[in-house]
């Protein structure tokens, strides 16, 4: 039997077309070392990757960034992905997008748009995004998105400095005619880890937010779907990060490195293949980065003998590295981890912090 027997193809590819972005959100999921325009993949390489993803069995492609609309070939890539029968999703801040661009995206066959929301308070939204008039621009873009017939998801990233307006965010999603709202608590990697003391909510804030979401889900059934991502610093069991390492997703960086998750580059002991050099199928099936933490064989105790090992897949490798110092350990979000109490104490200390200043996401040259 081949070692590949039973290996399912990826469900989706996250195509990070660029790290360029007009916003500077302090919780950005991009790495601290950003890739400049000159290192971005060409249109032709992306098209080949799209074909390889479809042939491998991927069903969806998420065009993300940075701000993916800064790439002028976005429509070309969307058309190519639709021709390959992939479901196409655009993850955008909406900043820099005008009405003509929205129409052009619709003509290209784009299936869905996810628009980010920093806050419902205009000044706070600008302060978080590190830009001006962002809320006003986004509201206009949301209108054009709906007018063009797109289904809309609003993605509200929530944290200590905007959680008190969660109810207003839900109301705004309804007003804008969004089909979905993602209420995503900040996940603490990269920029967000740097800004943790200014972002971490208290346990009481988290519980209140969960209550608000649960109530809104009941009253808005059939009108608005609310997806809810919790911060696992207060959890008892870890999340199944990415649905398990190398099980569902491939993340491709602007320069072509294929990652099992967007933060995987923080694990410096891993080698990441580039789509320029190897096919997506080879990378998915054989590359050391994807096979390293796939399945359960790599697991230490207490994961190895845990009956949840195929539920949470050991949680998040990047978080194990960031907080327990070793990517091979159990995610400290698990109460069975010896690092769990320290993680919880860190969250409580950060939540009680008076820090409000952000370190903004900025492009700086990356050493090669």
């Amino acid at each position, binding site marked *: 039997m081949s070692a590949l027997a039973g290996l399912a193809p990826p469900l989706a590819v996250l195509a990070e077309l660029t790290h360029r972005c007009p916003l500077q959100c302090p919780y950005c999921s991009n790495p601290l070392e950003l890739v400049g325009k000159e290192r971005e993949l060409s249109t032709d390489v992306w098209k080949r990757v799209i074909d390889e993803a479809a042939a491998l069995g991927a069903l969806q492609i998420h065009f993300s960034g940075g701000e993916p609309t800064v790439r002028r070939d976005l429509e070309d890539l969307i058309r190519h992905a639709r021709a390959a029968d992939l479901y196409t999703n655009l993850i955008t801040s909406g900043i820099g997008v005008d009405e003509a661009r929205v129409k052009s995206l619709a003509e290209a066959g784009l*299936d869905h748009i996810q628009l980010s929301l920093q806050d419902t308070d205009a000044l706070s939204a600008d302060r978080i995004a590190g830009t001006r008039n962002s809320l006003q621009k986004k509201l206009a873009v949301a209108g054009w998105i709906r007018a063009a017939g797109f289904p809309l998801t609003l993605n509200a990233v929530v944290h200590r400095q905007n959680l008190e307006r969660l109810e207003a965010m839900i109301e705004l999603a309804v007003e804008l005619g969004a089909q979905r709202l993602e209420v995503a608590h900040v996940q603490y990697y990269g920029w967000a880890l740097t800004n943790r003391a200014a972002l971490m909510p208290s346990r009481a804030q988290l519980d209140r937010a969960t209550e608000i979401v649960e109530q809104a889900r009941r009253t808005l059934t059939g009108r608005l779907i609310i997806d809810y991502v919790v911060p696992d610093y207060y959890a008892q069991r870890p999340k199944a990060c990415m649905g398990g390492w190398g099980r569902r997703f491939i993340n491709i960086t602007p320069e072509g490195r294929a990652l099992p998750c967007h933060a995987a580059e923080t694990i410096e002991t891993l080698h990441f293949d580039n789509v320029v050099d190897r096919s997506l199928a080879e990378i998915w099936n054989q590359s050391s980065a994807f096979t390293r933490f796939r399945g359960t064989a790599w697991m230490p105790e207490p994961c190895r003998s845990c009956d949840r090992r195929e539920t949470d897949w050991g949680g998040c490798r990047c978080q194990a590295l960031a907080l327990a110092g070793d990517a091979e350990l159990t995610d400290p979000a698990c109460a069975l981890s010896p690092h769990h109490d320290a993680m919880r104490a860190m969250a409580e200390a950060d939540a009680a912090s008076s820090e409000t200043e952000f370190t903004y996401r900025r492009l700086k040259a990356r050493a090669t």
Partner: protein
Amino acid sequence: MSADEETMIPRLAQGVRLKFDAARDGWVVLAPERIIVPEETALEILRKCDGKRNLAAIIDELASEYDAPRDVIADDVHTLMSELIAKGLLRS
């Protein structure tokens, strides 16, 4: 279910597509940032929601295909439709 309700024409919600997935040898529902593998009965209903058939026609067809009493099928369809609408996959 009332006769009035049966005149409605259910259709896939905006941004929802039904696709046969050759890699996994089965039907999948592609929706905004979700992929759902529908159960057999849900799939039967979704495949009939083509924006042309009304609910009465869908129930008639299913009653005939399953050779089952129409009121039993109608109850099942009603329950499943409510679920599919709540999940954002169908609109009426």
